[in-house]
């Protein structure tokens, strides 16, 4: 059925006719001139060239290795969540082409369910920068972009990676066709992994090696993008992603015989119209999502499921009011319809948000003033202002100063509000005040940056037991602050020899400053699963057809209880990859990837060991 669909699509695309037109580049240039990023705010963009190296991975691996982000993962292909700037997974909103895709029930996204192969760019907005897309990302947000950029003619690529340690096979097929006013692109993904890897069983006296059980995964995905250029200023885009994932869920180590698994189905479709003029950009769109998940534990006959239907309408506009002044706005409306085994009835929620932004730029100064407001089921949840600047103090623009202040809030999730009996409809929104300032210096191929940030989060929502029953409550106030240092050095020694080096370091202090009566021991204690130090180092060297990449992370100890008595030791996984390219009419890449190069035994989540050294070999043919 899946391949029938694909063959049918190939057939259709071959018979589309019309005149050749190539105005896409012009439209994109104009678009980038008007629709500006949040100048003065911190963000990180991982482009398609980086993503292509991670085509067989999910977003969590990409963000850890290339983004230097702290990702909490339980296993390969297992639940993975992102923590940005010392805040939790629920404080990190994930967007797909500017539309929020966090589960409204849990309030977070499982990054392992998002394959890199289906996205062209990943933009990480840190702190206040996330307000460009929406509220709720008190730590930051991740925007997964599908750009639908298709070259004229027929393009085809097929890639396969096999990891013999994990017994994991990943196939990615990509096909595109563009002629005249139409373009089509199809991506197919098939992943099968046994994930039966060796680990040290610390629950046994002599700490023997055991083999991880009940950890296999199978995923199939299809993505379809269709674009129609109405004329030089107007275009229509349709994007669809369908993903099925069937995964066993390994238990905490020391437990054998647990049979629990999860079936996830996700369907996401989006239709968008864009108008791009010299001084106006307008985008209107609708999106429909249907996400279904079913969890089964055969040992205790526990079965739970949820089905979330999301309707989204969005509008984005940017208009040049003056040569130095651009006004932007963004409207989003999401309507959730949720059926969950945890709810007594079907739950509906309507969210509406509006954002207005003014960009002023003159000579060396850029200023941004932004205001956002949210409504939930018609009730306004407060106004969120933010202000940012960037300034080049020297004529050569080697130095750059930037900073911002912002206010943000996070709404309680539907589970927080409506979980049977224990849900708490009296919960208040979490409130945050964020501040950051930074300095950057660059010259030729060398760049350095330093950022200091701080945020105060009040009315933090936490589930805790009351008389033995766990309920969500607004329990504490948290302050988190940190320093981010980064350096990048690109050097070219000879015509066919090139090296890129990047170093990043993050220091994060995220502590409770106010807690409920009786919990005073928790004051000034680092939040769980927030490493104080996170270092990452990347070296990429290219010589002719050969490319070598080395990525080294170092995550300091993370506390796993709130009073900071129990912890996970530091870990420093490294990845080495080699790629060799052959051009012979088409293009063939052969690659070798060694993960966990130094064979480290480590846990990112307590009781869930990560794989020791494992090797993948891959090839990709592009026509």
């Amino acid at each position, binding site marked *: 059925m899946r391949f029938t669909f694909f063959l049918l699509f190939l057939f259709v695309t071959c018979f589309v006719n019309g005149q050749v037109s190539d105005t896409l580049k012009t439209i994109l240039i104009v678009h980038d001139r008007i629709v500006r990023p949040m100048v003065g705010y911190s963000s990180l963009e991982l482009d398609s060239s980086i993503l292509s190296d991670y085509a067989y991975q999910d977003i969590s691996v990409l963000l850890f290795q290339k983004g230097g982000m702290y990702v909490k993962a339980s296993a390969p292909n297992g639940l993975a969540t992102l923590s940005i700037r010392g805040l939790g997974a629920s404080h990190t909103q994930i967007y797909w082409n500017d539309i929020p895709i966090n589960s409204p029930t849990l309030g977070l996204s499982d990054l392992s369910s998002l394959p890199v192969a289906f996205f062209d760019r990943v933009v990480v907005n840190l702190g206040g920068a996330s307000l460009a897309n929406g509220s709720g990302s008190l730590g930051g947000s991740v925007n997964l972009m599908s750009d639908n950029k298709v070259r004229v003619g027929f393009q085809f690529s097929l890639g396969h990676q096999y990891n013999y340690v994990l017994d994991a096979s990943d196939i990615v097929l990509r096909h595109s066709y563009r002629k005249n006013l139409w373009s089509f692109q199809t991506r197919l993904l098939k992943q099968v992994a046994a994930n039966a890897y060796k680990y040290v069983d*610390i*629950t046994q*006296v002599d*700490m023997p090696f055991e083999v991880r059980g009940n950890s296999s995964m199978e995923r199939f995905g299809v993505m379809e993008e269709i674009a129609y250029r109405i004329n030089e200023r107007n275009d229509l885009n349709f994007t669809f992603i369908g993903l099925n994932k069937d995964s066993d869920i390994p*238990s*905490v*180590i*020391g*437990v*054998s015989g*647990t049979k629990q698994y999860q079936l996830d189905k996700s369907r996401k479709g989006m239709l968008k119209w864009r108008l791009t003029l010299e001084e106006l950009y307008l985008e209107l769109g609708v999106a429909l999502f249907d996400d279904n998940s079913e969890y089964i534990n*055969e*040992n*205790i*006959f526990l079965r739970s499921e949820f089905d979330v239907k999301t309707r989204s309408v969005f509008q984005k506009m940017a208009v040049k009011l003056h040569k130095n002044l651009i006004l932007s706005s963004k409207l989003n409306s999401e309507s959730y319809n949720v059926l969950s085994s945890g709810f007594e009835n079907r739950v509906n929620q309507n969210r509406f948000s509006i954002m207005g932004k003014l960009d002023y730029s003159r000579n060396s100064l850029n200023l941004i003033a932004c205001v956002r407001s949210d409504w939930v089921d018609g009730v306004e949840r407060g106004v969120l202002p933010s202000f940012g600047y960037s300034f080049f103090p020297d004529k050569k623009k080697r130095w750059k100063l930037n900073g911002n202040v912002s206010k943000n809030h996070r709404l309680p999730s539907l589970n927080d509000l409506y979980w*049977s*009996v*224990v849900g708490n409809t009296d919960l208040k929104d979490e409130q945050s005040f964020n501040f950051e300032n930074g300095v950057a210096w660059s010259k030729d191929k060398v760049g350095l940056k330093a950022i200091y940030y701080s945020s105060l989060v009040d009315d933090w929502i936490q589930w*805790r*037991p*009351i*008389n*033995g*029953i766990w309920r969500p409550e607004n329990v504490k106030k948290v302050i988190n602050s940190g320093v981010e240092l980064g350096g990048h*050095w690109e*050097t070219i*020694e000879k015509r066919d020899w090139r*090296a890129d*080096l990047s170093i990043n370091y993050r220091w994060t202090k995220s502590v409770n400053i106010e807690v*409920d*009566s*009786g*919990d005073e*021991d928790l004051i000034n204690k680092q939040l769980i699963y927030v490493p104080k130090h996170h*270092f990452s*180092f990347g*070296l990429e060297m290219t010589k002719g057809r050969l490319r070598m990449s*080395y990525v*080294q992370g*170092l995550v300091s100890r993370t506390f*796993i*209880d*709130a*009073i*900071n*008595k*129990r*912890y*996970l*030791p*530091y870990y*420093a*996984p*490294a990845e080495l990859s080699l790629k060799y390219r052959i051009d012979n009419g088409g293009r063939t890449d052969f690659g070798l990837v060694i993960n966990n190069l*130094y064979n480290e*035994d480590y*846990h990112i989540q*307590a*009781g869930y*060991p990560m794989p020791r050294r494992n090797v993948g070999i891959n090839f990709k043919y592009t026509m």
Partner: protein
Amino acid sequence: MMFTRNLKYRRLMLVAVLGLLMGSCHKKEIGPQSSCDNDVLLLQGELLIACEGLFNSNSASLSVYDIEESEVSNNVFSEVNGSLMGDVFQSISYDNGLYFFVVNNSQKIWVVDSASYQVVDEILLPNRSPRYMVHGENNLSYSSNLSLNPNGEPVYIDVIDKGSMAVIDSINVGVWVEEMIVDGNMLFACGMGASDVVVIDTDSREVVSAVQVGREPVSIVQDGNGDVWVLCTGGFEEELPSLWHIDVETLLAEGKYFTDIGMYPTRLIIDQIGEQLYFLNNGVYKMDVALFEIPVQAFIETGSNDFYGVGVGSDSEVYIGDANGFNGNGTVFRYNALGELITSFDVGTGPSMFYFADN
């Protein structure tokens, strides 16, 4: 020019080598570690405290408390045996010089020498979710299991032979069972998944009766008269919670209901002479078995604490476990027989059950 290029190259190599060295550093610690150490390792304490640990984190632990000296040792199991205890320490029972530590999510029961706390055996229960263990005649023991069985799948009480430390039989009771007691050849089991106390003949290993009580019977004790008391939570606001008295001879049951459906009473225990019942309902409540009236006034108020477990010693001293929101270590409060606080001390995460070695 050549010098500059060489300098760049050297810098690049230096950083690369530093990165490689950093990654190749070896460490000894693997997985969860604890930075709290015991001053002394108590092996003669009279009070054993089961600390559940946080679910799915392998942080179950055993604390041992010397009542006379008011000293506590934490993580005793791990310190003695050198391995983690497992995930969710559910309950403790004792028989013939051995402790049986039921570790729910690890699907096992540790069999431990009561003098040294050294593991002498382990009973593996794959595909089970063991909760409590009681000991009967003929060297047999019984282990209850959690199961939600929405479609009527079988749910078993496992019969364990203590000679071989293996499951020799399983009795299908059809419902999720929590606490149990044995009276002669009769096993009384709280049918948490229903509204019954299941009665099993341990000779024939068959269910012979089901005594109807309130919704979700969770705790069961036997008083000095031999009668059985059963506490029912009422479910999550499904029914008023209730307390039941069952005559073991006639199996006649009499129940009294709490007044507020929002209450969730748990952890019914009885003092060592079988006269006073205690249970948690935010605070600690106390009831004389001779006066079957559900108390409305707490014997010990919860205050800002989060009471999670309760135990009563031979001199009617009350020990209360505070889970501290499962934020880390738990706290045990020790009260005298009048309900006055004597002392408190830190234990492992989620102190839920107390076992007195002088029982």
